[in-house]
């Protein structure tokens, strides 16, 4: 018995110590930082076993979709139990400005999506689905136009691979082909509708549009009939400006009336923009307007001459992938 005395004493001591550690926290650990630190700029938290980046974003930023901010600042893919994480409460790089360049936001514009591959004009639904899947699998995220507007005025930053998908149409394919694909992939889009065509035969109806809006789609307008707003040869200035103002304000009113929400976004029919149309859009409280000029948008783009990349169906996979520029290098130190 005596022989084993010493080890037993040791064993008891060790287990006592272990039990003590279990009660007070870490055995022999230095003093721990407080679990949550919070001020106007940031929070510092210790993730628990139940936490994910999304749950932390929901708790501290008020929106699970903002998880990318935590991931970006801490350079982590997911939260681990016991991990200390900094949560920036304000944009860390407004406008996507970095020392080595700036963010650009591609706005994709699909004029038409068709069911079959044989159709002459338009992107086949299968190609559209492949493109949307590519975006999802490669970390692209669709953003709302209100977010884009904040970004364009340096009030916010966007996820690094932010993209906007847009349609200017009241045709059935929007609801029948494009909408389900986007929904399946957790994406949203912006739909610019010619309000005069809604509820007509073989066109979208207000109920469908309201359903898309409820799913987080932005609803903008491209006028009543989506006719070009370029001046005719013989109109007088007064006639012309009244016509433009009608197209803008009446379509805006129709949306407000049917969807019970204000409309702040415009797509120039045929892509034709001018200072006069811009002045009238601003007069009626529009915030963003889209052309059909190709290119990606940095924060300093003109809010009323935003560029869009047209996808007509002839584009190759490689071209599609290369067109999605989300960063422009430039030494800004």
């Amino acid at each position, binding site marked *: 018995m005596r*022989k*084993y005395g010493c*080890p037993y004493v040791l*064993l008891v001591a*060790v287990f006592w*110590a272990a039990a003590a*550690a279990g009660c007070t926290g*870490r*055995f*022999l*650990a*230095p*003093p*721990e*930082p*407080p679990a949550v*630190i919070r*001020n106007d*700029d*940031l929070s*510092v938290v210790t993730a628990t076993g139940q936490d994910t980046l999304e749950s932390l974003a929901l708790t501290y930023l008020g929106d699970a979709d903002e998880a990318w901010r935590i991931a970006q600042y801490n350079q982590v893919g997911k939260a*681990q139990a*016991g991990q*200390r994480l900094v949560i*920036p409460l304000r*944009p*860390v*790089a407004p*406008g996507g*400005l*970095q*020392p080595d360049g700036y963010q650009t936001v591609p706005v994709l514009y699909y004029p038409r999506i068709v069911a079959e591959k044989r159709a002459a004009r338009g992107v086949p639904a299968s190609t559209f689905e492949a493109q949307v899947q590519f975006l999802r699998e490669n970390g692209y995220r669709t953003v709302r136009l209100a977010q884009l507007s904040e970004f364009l*005025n*340096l009030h916010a930053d966007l996820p690094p691979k932010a993209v906007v998908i847009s349609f200017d149409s009241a045709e059935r394919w929007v609801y029948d082909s494009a909408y389900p694909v986007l929904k399946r992939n957790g994406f949203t889009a912006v739909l610019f509708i010619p309000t005069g065509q809604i509820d007509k035969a073989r066109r979208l109806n207000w109920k469908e549009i309201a359903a898309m809006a409820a799913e987080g789609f932005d609803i903008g307008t491209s006028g009543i009939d989506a006719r070009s707003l*370029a*001046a*005719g*040869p*013989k*109109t*007088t*200035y*007064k006639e*012309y400006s009244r016509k433009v103002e009608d197209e803008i304000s009446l379509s805006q009113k129709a949306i407000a009336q049917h969807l019970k929400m204000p409309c702040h976004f415009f797509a120039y029919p045929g892509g034709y923009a*001018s*200072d*006069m149309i*811009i*002045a*009238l859009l*601003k*007069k009626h409280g529009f915030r963003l307007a889209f052309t059909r000029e190709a290119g990606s948008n940095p924060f*300093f*783009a*003109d*809010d009323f*001459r935003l560029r869009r990349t047209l996808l007509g169906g002839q584009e190759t996979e490689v071209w599609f992938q290369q067109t999605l520029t989300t960063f422009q290098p*430039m030494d*800004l*130190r």
Partner: protein
Amino acid sequence: MMLVRRNRFLLLILVGILLSWGFDSTARSAAAEFQAYRQRATALEAQGDLPQALFAWRVAAALEPDDAGIKETIQALSAAIAKAAAEHSRQGITYFRAGDLEKARKEFLAALRLDPDHDQALFYLKRRLNNPDGEAYTVQPGDSFTQIAATYYRDADKAALVACFNDLDPDKPLRIGTTILLPELATEKMLSRRETDAMLARAQQALDEKKYSQVLDITARIDEKQPRYARLRALADAARLGQAVRLMEEKQYRRALDLLNEVTPGFEGRGRAIDEARQRIDAQASEEKLRLAQAYMKKGAYLDAIQVSQRVMEENPGNPIAKTVYEAAHYALGKQYLDRNQELKALEALKALSPEYKDTAQLIAQAQGRLNARAEEYYRRGVKHFLNEELEAAVAAWQKALELNPQHPKARQDMDNALRLLDKWRNLDKGDKNGQ
């Protein structure tokens, strides 16, 4: 014994596991966490990423709120960031005014990366650089949108559009000094885009053929119907500049300058052409004066020639002709005085020249020699008077000698002697009279 040894071995492992659990790496101590952000901030600062460095300092400050040093660091860094941003923005405006839009954009971006609230940089980047051709107007005291619309569009009804285009409320008064962008707005008798494009193409062709007045005719016609058309102004400016260059070739510099003043400031080549026209006008004026000076020379009016050529030299120090005339006139004048035995005046004229100019040194020596000889003559005359006890006459003669040659070896001493004697004489004379 084996069991005990094995147990001891197991115990050691157990203790080891427990100890290492105690130092679990995921639970860093407060001090270590604080240090990590300190280091991160310092590294970012060294890399020149000041905004991210500032944020890392803020994290560090949140972890260690009692550290006064960090608060100071944050304040100093914030101040440095604001200063650097202001400097980038200033540089951007300089580039923008010089027409270098790419460099300007880069500076404004650098300013906003540092300070996203820098309104001036944002205004230039978003409004001015997105409308590089758009005309800007700075609000003056007494301005209103109505009045600006009436002036620039000949249509006061466009006031609201101008206000909206600038994101301003048309019903609120304008703040003096605000920069207003003037949108391109079509007027009553609007031209169709096709018509305008056709006219612009004709104007461009006329410009290529250097038919400048034709360009100005066409642009004036479009302007009447559709003002504020940026391409139009560029064409008119190019035509005016071309016309001005042509006028300068014809040496009509004044008319060229008038035309150049109508070209939009900042238009490429305008500044250079204005400088050249001004220089030519100055040169032309100098040439006229020099012609006058040369005419005076021919007439033998050397003093006038000197005066005119001197004025040209003051206006244009490098003018070689002015210098030639100036020197020739002085030389001729010096010689003329020497011929007339006016050696002092001759010397004055010749001393304006370098001794190396022609035989100037010799002429100066000659004049000086003649003066010395005449001084000697007066000196001797003075001695003669002195011997005859005509002291006053002697003093007058020696004075004359000194005038001609201030360095005369004996004249001054002798004259002083004579003056002393004269003084005594006069005192004696007084005493005699008093004694009587």
